[in-house]
């Protein structure tokens, strides 16, 4: 039990990172139906931004973070403009932009790979390496920072969808594109914004997780897969689902390693098995969309 409490904060932090990535997917899938696997690479780009601005040039953390997130918003918007909009305008089948984005995954990864030495690069911890005890729970400063930031983001996004007109129009597009267009909602603006937001959130996830796992050119794909798995578990219908899915996945992963009586090597397979079982029994995810 002691170990569980000790792991809980760390697992929650990992879960928050997965949740943010799932949220990034969700923001892009809902209005367009496009699955953008490049979110992992976006997280990687932001991590390298973190290395450059925060480690190498030693900018103050808030300034560096703001600059990187601003860059990611622009990057997301540019990605949509270049690879998605032409295809949508041409009336291409839905799979085409998904694959174009898979291609962009390779482009992003290789662009970073040729620009930096191949070793992992350090990204600094905003609050240092200390440890915080909070009741029965204990975790690193970074873990608490990740959890706090993620909660803020999710609350913000939830409020945006529930309480603002712009958010409601987003929902309208998600529910029925044609009807939304007929009602005068600017489809391409919604799409561009959703990609910008997706990139920003994926970038945030990268920035939060990279002090622990270091910035390196291969970090994108595992993150993309874990984010997507979290999305499926939580369901595409609701924003909260992304966070729930992320937390469940992280806890399942870590608790399996800690407690399951299987040899270490096989423990990696358990989340995969879980996912497949989940897909067969409840593919729409845990949280249903609102009617």
């Amino acid at each position, binding site marked *: 039990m002691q170990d569980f409490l000790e792991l809980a904060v760390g697992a929650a932090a990992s879960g928050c990172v997965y949740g943010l990535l799932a949220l990034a997917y969700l923001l892009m899938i809902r209005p367009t139906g496009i*699955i953008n696997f490049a979110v992992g690479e976006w997280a990687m780009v932001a991590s390298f931004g973190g290395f450059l601005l925060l480690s190498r040039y030693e900018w103050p953390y808030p300034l560096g973070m703001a600059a990187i997130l601003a860059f990611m918003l622009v990057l997301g918007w540019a990605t949509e403009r270049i*690879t998605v909009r*032409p*295809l949508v305008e*041409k009336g*291409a*089948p839905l*799979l*085409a932009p998904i*694959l*174009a984005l*898979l*291609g*962009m*995954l*390779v*482009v992003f*990864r*290789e*662009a970073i*790979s*040729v620009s930096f030495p191949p070793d992992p690069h350090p990204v600094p911890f905003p609050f240092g390496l200390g440890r915080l005890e909070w009741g029965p729970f204990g975790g690193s400063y970074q873990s608490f920072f990740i959890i706090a930031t993620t909660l803020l983001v999710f609350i913000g996004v939830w409020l945006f969808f529930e309480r603002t007109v712009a958010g409601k129009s987003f929902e309208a597009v998600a529910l029925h594109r044609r009807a939304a267009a007929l009602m005068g909602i600017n489809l391409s603006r919604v799409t561009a914004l959703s990609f910008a937001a997706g990139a920003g959130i994926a970038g945030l996830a990268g920035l939060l997780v990279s002090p622990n796992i270091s910035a390196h050119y291969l970090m994108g794909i595992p993150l993309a*897969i874990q984010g*997507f*798995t979290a999305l*499926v578990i939580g369901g595409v219908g609701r924003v909260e689902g992304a966070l729930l899915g992320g937390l469940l996945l992280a806890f399942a992963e870590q608790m399996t390693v800690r407690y399951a009586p299987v*040899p270490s*090597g*096989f423990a*990696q*397979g358990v989340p*995969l*098995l879980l*996912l*497949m079982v989940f*897909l*067969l029994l409840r*593919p729409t995810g845990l949280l249903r969309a609102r009617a």
Partner: protein
Amino acid sequence: MKSALRWVAAIAVLSAAAFFMSDYHNDVYRKLMLWVALALGYNFLFGVCGQVSFSHFAFYGIGAYSIVILLFQAHLPLPVAIVCGLVLCVVFALVVAIPSTRLEGFYLALATLALGQLFIVVLNEGGSITGGNGGIANYRLPDIFGVRIRGPWYTAVIATLLVGTLALLWRLDHSWFGRACRAVRDNAEAAAAMGVDVARVKVIAFTLTAVLAGIAGMVYAFVDNTVNPPIFGIENAFLLLFMVIVGGAGRHAGAVIGAVLLFLLPFWLSPVVGHHQALVFGVLVVAAILFQPRGLIGLWDRFSRSRS
């Protein structure tokens, strides 16, 4: 009868080419043909039947590993090993296909992606059966009727496999089964309303293409005489998808074009752009999709249309 002759002629031409090539070109040629065969099968599953699967490449691996394990660990004679290998492929395919009929679109994609990764985990943890991380090496194709098949003759075997795969898929495509598959792909509910047993069609398509991939895998095992987990990694599943999309999903010619282009592209790029070749590859793939979302086969169509 005439079409049978055409296929035989194709085999003859493809095989004859092998005798005029150097060792290196032969090697690339063989692997290219195997990839084309895989792409054709995947194109049928994905392009014609609309099943988004990432586990196709895993069946390539199942075929390769099973023939090696059956031949050199269970010491079965070659014909028995081949049959057992096929049976294994069918069994695994059914195990995957039957539950998959309940999944659509990206759920199916995700489940099969997880399956592909699970396959690699099993290979790595398989201890002395699968050879673990190092895989299995140090074997060669046993003599058949006292004859040792190697070099360009083995390339002929691969050519036969390729043409056979194409012929089979071509026939299927033009049969009621192909029509049923397309109906399921375009609108499963309407297809069911028309009397098509949707689940059965999906399972048959899945199993059939999986077995074709498994056979290709068995043939592959003797190309380099090594099997190990990195060869069957998940990146190849993505590459296969790219090949079919860039070439043109749903069209055999598209699969061929896509496979040839994307397999050979790194070989052409590497000497020209050095370590930027993966970047250039990515850019070219994106450009191809942007330029021709329905596949490069569209260019050929336009060309032949303007000619007639």
